[in-house]
């Protein structure tokens, strides 16, 4: 049966070059929260009793939907295919003749599916109920009065340096940046120096390049300072200026100059 007639020509299959705006795909994707949700939709749409689903019809509809998604070159989550396989399995088990003697012990092949559907459905409902509760900022705000406190008052805060480290580890693990997995002491000392250079710039506006290096710190210190300047330049936070060729090099905060 043609599903569309364009200029008198019947179409029985979805054209492969059919343009679907990316937004539409997202709508389809977001419409269902997974295979259980889709299945539940198919059941509810036809007012079927969840406890007595016609597995043959539902499987057919489900597979049709999956096929359509496939034809739309829509990348389906593996879970949808797993469900299709499960439905096919149930269907085939129901087609098998029941051994007469073990009738009592024979489990309805649909039982597990029905249990999962019901379990999912109640949490789907619970999610809606939860959304219906008055929620902060959506339905109400906390009434506050500005605490007009004296400046000398200091709150006691329990801070553990390990908390900070753990927080950093967590956030970096999430960011999943390869480079970040090893922060060596050297790098930190460069960071430290970057901060102190910027700090000096805040106070002095311009500082001479050579003043960054002191004999006391030795080669190591010089290297750290140099790397710090390079990093800051790369981050576009610094500008190097010279009053004359081969003259003294000065550092200044980016954008502060002419």
């Amino acid at each position: 049966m043609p599903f569309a007639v364009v200029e008198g020509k019947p179409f029985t299959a979805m054209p492969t070059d059919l343009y679907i705006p990316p937004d539409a795909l997202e709508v389809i994707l977001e419409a269902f929260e997974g295979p259980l949700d889709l299945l539940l939709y198919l059941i509810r749409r036809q007012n079927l009793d969840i406890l007595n689903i016609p597995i043959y019809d539902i499987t057919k509809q489900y597979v049709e939907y999956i096929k359509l998604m496939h034809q739309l070159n829509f990348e389906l989550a593996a879970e949808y295919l797993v469900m299709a396989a499960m439905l096919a399995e149930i269907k085939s088990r129901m087609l098998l003749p029941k051994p007469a003697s073990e009738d009592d012990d024979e489990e309805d092949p649909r039982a597990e599916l029905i249990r999962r559907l019901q379990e999912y459905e109640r949490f789907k409902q619970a999610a809606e109920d939860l959304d219906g509760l008055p929620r902060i900022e959506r339905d109400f705000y906390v009434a506050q009065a500005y605490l007009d406190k004296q400046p000398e008052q200091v709150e006691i805060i329990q801070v553990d340096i390990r908390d900070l480290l753990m927080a950093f580890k967590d956030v970096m693990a999430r960011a999943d940046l390869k480079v970040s997995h090893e922060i060596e002491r050297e790098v930190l000392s460069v960071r430290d120096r970057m901060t102190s250079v910027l700090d000096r710039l805040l106070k002095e506006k311009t500082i001479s390049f050579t003043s960054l290096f002191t004999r006391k710190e030795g080669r190591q210190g010089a290297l750290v300072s140099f790397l710090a300047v390079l990093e800051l330049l790369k981050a576009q936070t610094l500008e190097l200026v010279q009053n004359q060729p081969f003259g003294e090099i000065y550092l200044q905060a980016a954008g502060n100059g002419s």
Partner: protein
Amino acid sequence: MEIKELKNTVEAALMAFDEPLSVKDLLQLFPEEQVTSNDINQAINDLEMDYADRGIELKCLSKGYRIQTRAKVQPWLKNLTEQKPKKLSRALLETLALIAYRQPITRGEIEDIRGVAVSSKIIHYMMERDWVRVLGYRDVPGKPAMLGTTKTFLDDFNLSSLQELPSLSEIKDIETLEQELQFGEENPPQEASQTMDESDE
């Protein structure tokens, strides 16, 4: 301390601190005065009455009392905020519901019930809002984290306890269904044979 002064101080305290304050917290306001829990409760009652026809109300939450704006003024207040409060996605709400009703629950268990993978983004967002926390780790391979809700979750959803959550719908006729369809039991045949054995003795 005069009753009116006490009431005013309690009101100022409730508005000054971010967190809800319990009667015990409020008693700490007055370490040197002869103030009892009864006095505090009286002050709270009076405030509740004061706010009866106002745009604010006093709400009792899990951690204590909080003054908040009433839902009826929200349509006007909304005009002042540029950014709309984020709509929670269905995926997030379903995950949150599972954590709220089934805590402690692991991510794997959530995925089993929902039938799809739980995105890390969702878990992260709920932790960021301090609605969900790790309660511990299950002692099975992989040591999966067990998730549960926080008091902030209760506060933000205007609940005083988990009991106030809307009740879960019943699983329909699960008992009769089980009998009819004979599912649910893990090993019905074994059990059956065991009974037989016993009667043999």
